[in-house]
């Protein structure tokens, strides 16, 4: 059993080879196969440069020798093996290390700016190169989550949620570098731990320790909502408050414990994860709970990929779990990605690749996963010296992670950006 019949194929036209079965040694590994393909390509294309390939056998990345892999995956060696090959993902390249004054609780980056929330009660805006641009100070307590709302030219809207039970809507002018609190969203009775802006960029949802989800308008206005809180002295409120008070459009209640993470799966649907071991899907228009996924542990974070329509969750154990939120046959976990050794506190799907996600954990490591290789992550990004608390992934292929070591790391990742659409 030293030889195997294998047929290679790829989705990349550039690297396509003839569709004929080859007899290859069973003991060959990724490197050997990659050399074989390169040799073939050299015959076919005159000016071929050496490319590292990765190989998938029935949707699973090849990580050991071919014979070994097929034995563990229970694939018959009698028939011709279909092997797909893709250009190998290169390791993420560390770009910047941005120092903060305190723990970084949250990070969100768009194509130009990085917004981080910190335990020093401020949010900060950084350029992608790591230059401090702006410090957004106004909260009286730890900033727990931040979010960009939208950008109109030079002025941007951003949100910060804090332990002081408020969410502040800021307007930031990047040219003048001025930030102004437009609204103070009051209504939560606990620390606001998570916020998410809807795809239309007009509403946002917040989740809090008080078990509530609240939907707010993200459009800045000049009017102040009436607050029906008779026992709160109005005068005091005026002096302390940043911006105009805003009250929620809608309150979604149902969770039995603190809400830890919330996101919009599309314009009408909300998804929230909670400490009561459930993930709930809500209709954002009516405020009705649509379905519920039940886990066995506290959920710390969730992420949804519109590309593959999967939900990834990180919880207070060492697994990243993948869910299908639309499955009607119960709330089964599709896949568990196990490699972390601490609580998974951050998980984020790639915006461009429907197979890849990044996860951060209290074991100080950020891991890059390809769900086709569920046994082991693609790469471990072990730069942090303390617990990782947040991670993000921009469209441009920038991975960001912040943690309790006060550092925000950015990694450049994206070998096949140009081919992503293929």
């Amino acid at each position, binding site marked *: 059993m030293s030889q195997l019949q294998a047929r290679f194929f790829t989705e990349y036209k550039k690297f396509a080879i003839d569709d004929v079965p080859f007899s290859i040694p069973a003991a060959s590994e990724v490197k050997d196969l990659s050399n074989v393909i390169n040799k073939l390509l050299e015959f076919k294309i005159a000016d071929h440069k050496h490319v590292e390939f990765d190989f998938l056998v029935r949707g699973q990345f090849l990580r050991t020798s071919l014979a070994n892999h097929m034995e563990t995956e229970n694939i018959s060696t009698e028939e011709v093996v279909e092997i797909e090959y893709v250009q190998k993902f290169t390791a993420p390249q560390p770009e910047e290390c941005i120092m903060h004054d305190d723990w970084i609780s949250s990070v969100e980056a768009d194509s130009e700016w990085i917004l981080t929330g910190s335990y020093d009660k401020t949010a900060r805006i950084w350029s992608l190169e790591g230059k401090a641009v702006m410090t957004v100070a106004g909260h009286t307590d730890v900033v727990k989550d931040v979010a960009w709302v939208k950008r109109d030219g030079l002025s941007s809207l951003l949100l910060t949620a804090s332990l002081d039970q408020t969410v502040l809507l800021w307007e930031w002018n990047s040219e003048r570098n001025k930030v102004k609190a437009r609204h103070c969203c009051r209504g939560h009775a*606990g620390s606001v731990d998570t916020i998410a802006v809807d795809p239309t960029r007009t509403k946002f949802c917040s989740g809090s320790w008080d078990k509530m989800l609240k939907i707010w308008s993200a459009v800045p206005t000049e009017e102040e909502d009436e607050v029906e809180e008779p026992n709160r002295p109005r005068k005091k409120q005026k002096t302390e408050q940043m911006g105009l008070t805003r009250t929620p459009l809608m309150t979604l209640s149902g969770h039995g*414990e603190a809400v830890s993470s919330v996101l919009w799966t599309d314009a009408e649907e909300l998804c929230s994860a909670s400490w009561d071991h459930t993930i709930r899907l809500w209709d954002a228009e009516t405020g009705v709970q649509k379905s519920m996924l039940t886990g066995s542990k506290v959920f710390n974070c969730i992420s949804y990929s519109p590309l593959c329509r999967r939900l990834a969750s990180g919880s207070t154990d060492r697994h990243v779990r993948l869910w299908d939120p639309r499955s009607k046959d119960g709330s089964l976990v599709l896949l568990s990605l196990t490699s972390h050794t601490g609580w998974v506190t951050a998980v984020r799907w790639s915006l461009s690749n429907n197979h890849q996600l990044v996860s951060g954990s209290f074991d100080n490591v950020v891991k890059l996963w390809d769900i086709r290789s569920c046994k082991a992550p693609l790469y471990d990004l072990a730069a942090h010296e303390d617990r990782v608390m947040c991670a993000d992934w921009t469209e441009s292929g920038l991975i960001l992670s912040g943690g309790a070591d006060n550092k925000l790391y950015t990694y450049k990742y994206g070998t096949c950006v140009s081919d992503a659409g293929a």
Partner: protein
Amino acid sequence: MSARGAAAERNSGMKKTTEKRKNREKEEQQQEEEELPMFDKNADKVGHLDDTDEEKEDLSDSEESVFSGLEDSGTDDDDDEEDDGDDDDDDDGDDASGEEEEEQDEENHNKVEKDPAAGETSLTPQTEDKPAKSRKLKKKKSVTSGGDEEEERGKSERDSGLKISSQVDEYEQDTSDEEDIRNTVGNIPMEWYKDFPHIGYDLDGKKIFKPIRSKDELDEFLEKMENPDYWRTVQDKMTGSDVRLSDEQVDLVHRLQHGKFGDINFNEYEPAIDFFSNEVMIHPVTNRPEDKRSFIPSLIEKEKVGKLVHAIKMGWIKPRRPKDSAPLYYDLWAKEDPNSILGRHKMHVPAPKIRLPGHEESYNPPPEYLLTEEERLTWEQQDPEERKLSLLPQKFPSLRAVPAFTRFIHERFERCLDLYLCPRQRKMRVNVNPEDLIPKLPKPKDLHPFPTTQSLVYRGHSSLVRSISVAPGGQWLVSGSDDGTVRFWEVATARCLKTVEVGGAVKSVAWSPNPAVCLVAISHGNTVVLMNPGLGDRLILSATDQLISSYEEPTEVKDQPVEWSLAEGTEHQQGQRLILTHPRAVKQVTWHGKGDYLACVMPDVSSNVQVVIHQVSKRRTQNPFRKNKGMVQCVSFHPIRPYFFVATQRHVRVYNLIKQELTKKLMTNCKWVSSMAIHPGGDNVICGSYDCRLAWFDLDLSTKPYKMLRHHKKALRGVAYHRQYPLFASGSDDGSVIVCHGMVYNDLLQNPLIVPVKVLKGHTITHDLGVLDVAFHPTQPWVFSSGADGTVRLFT
């Protein structure tokens, strides 16, 4: 022996002491001396037969013979020497001779009483018959003499004696012992002769006539009146004559009537003479010279010995069987021996049977059994082990044509091998699965969720963390340390949000369980600080402050053991609100479930004020116990009912706060209770102790522990129940936290199920102290532990 001697003997009764005997012997000797003259006289007359003596002998003998029954009984004992000599002489000559010898000896010893006996024995047999004859004579004489002889008895006796001596020869050869041979009618009723003038016939056939009886009634009466001997006159039926009984005869009748021996001389209590004593005599018992045969070797014996020697020589008999020196032990298991017949029967396995031949083995098999050419080839190619058939079926035209079976030896050999290899006995094996012996407890993995791994470490304290408490919402954790600080942590991120210096080693912290207020009680030194940490809902925080500030001084001020004061200045900014100054150091603070009452423990053996209960809203303090029942270790409120648990060193007392009485006293069986926790249901209590034990009490069951758990290696410092999950945990000086599943059922019949599920290690042991306190998260199955290494750890 004299009658007096016998009488004396009787009087003295049965008891005879040697002294008495001696006395008696003395008496006898005296008596004998008195009688001696008579005997002497006798001795003198030995040669010519003294009459009186003879008569005397005669009389006594006749009496004996009349009452022969009595004589028989009398001879059992040692009779008079005379009797002995008389009766036994014929039977055993040796004895008599022996006695004679002895008598001789005794004679030598001047025993005078023997003399007449010696005289007697020397008499000839003829003289021995004398008494009987004399008796007969006497009777004859009495018959003939009639009533005349009655008055002079002694004289007649003498006469008869004389007669006897003269008529001795007449009845010499007559040895018959008949009573009266003069009347020959025999033993018949005499009434038959009532009407006849005669009464019978004598030897010659002549009639014996009745004496003439002319007496009528009057004569009878006169006789009765006048004759003084009338009372002793009887009629002899045989002769019809009246006989006057002599004095001796009357005496005899009296004696018989009183049930005594007829013989007056018979001593029934003869002293027993130990003839053969234990003492070794210097003289032989007999003087008889030894026989010759005692000197000559016995021929018969020689013959017998010769036979034995010959048999030994020939080996027919063994001289002596050698004693087997093997000790005699009883083999207890002899019957259990599997090789014994019974065992072999039980274990018998029959030998495997040989297979019966089938069609293919026939000399003329049906054609379908014959192999085709192809099959034959494959058969030949196969190994002998693989073949289905051990032989090739062959067809022969007739039985005659069948050749010898070539594989016979081979097959026999294989059969022998089969038998040789087949098992001889069944091996009995007890199939006990060792796992069946373990009591059925659910597996820990079926009891999820419970904390399994260390998830977060809350670092910041610089000294050992004595106490921790979790906010009722589960978002915050407070820890008090010996470094004089209290730290507030965010549970989910291990972020220290607030550090408060209180100025003294913090002994105990407790977060108020009331979710509507936010108060933390902190004890350090003599003071208990009520603190608003400023964490959580703003509304609640302001409500708490309002609650504190809205207090109004009561009109009448009661004297309280504790001083309440408001915190001011920096302390107020830190969050401290009320400061309670106690008389002594406060070791523990604990809240009532409603969050208004706060109990503080000030352990002191000598004081009555060890426990105080504060009411925060009214700022009142009361001392619930008047008496000191030992050093209080910790206290706790019942979660639902108005009970109060007080743990002293060895007991936990349960008080009813409303009735103000002791409801229960739990015996912990521990040396020193360190910590206590009440199940949220209120019916179960766990106590940790410094002697490594954890006692679970079911209050409904008994006051003794329902279960004792000894899983820790060192002293327990803290125990805790989970509020929702069936979990409890204990922290110990060995640096570990042990989490147990403790399911309490609503069904009263079902006892709690206690399964240890996890040992959680993480704390490093510092100064011999490991885990100092444990606390559960209020909603998640998470356990916090604080240790001497200055950390608080969260296990999930």
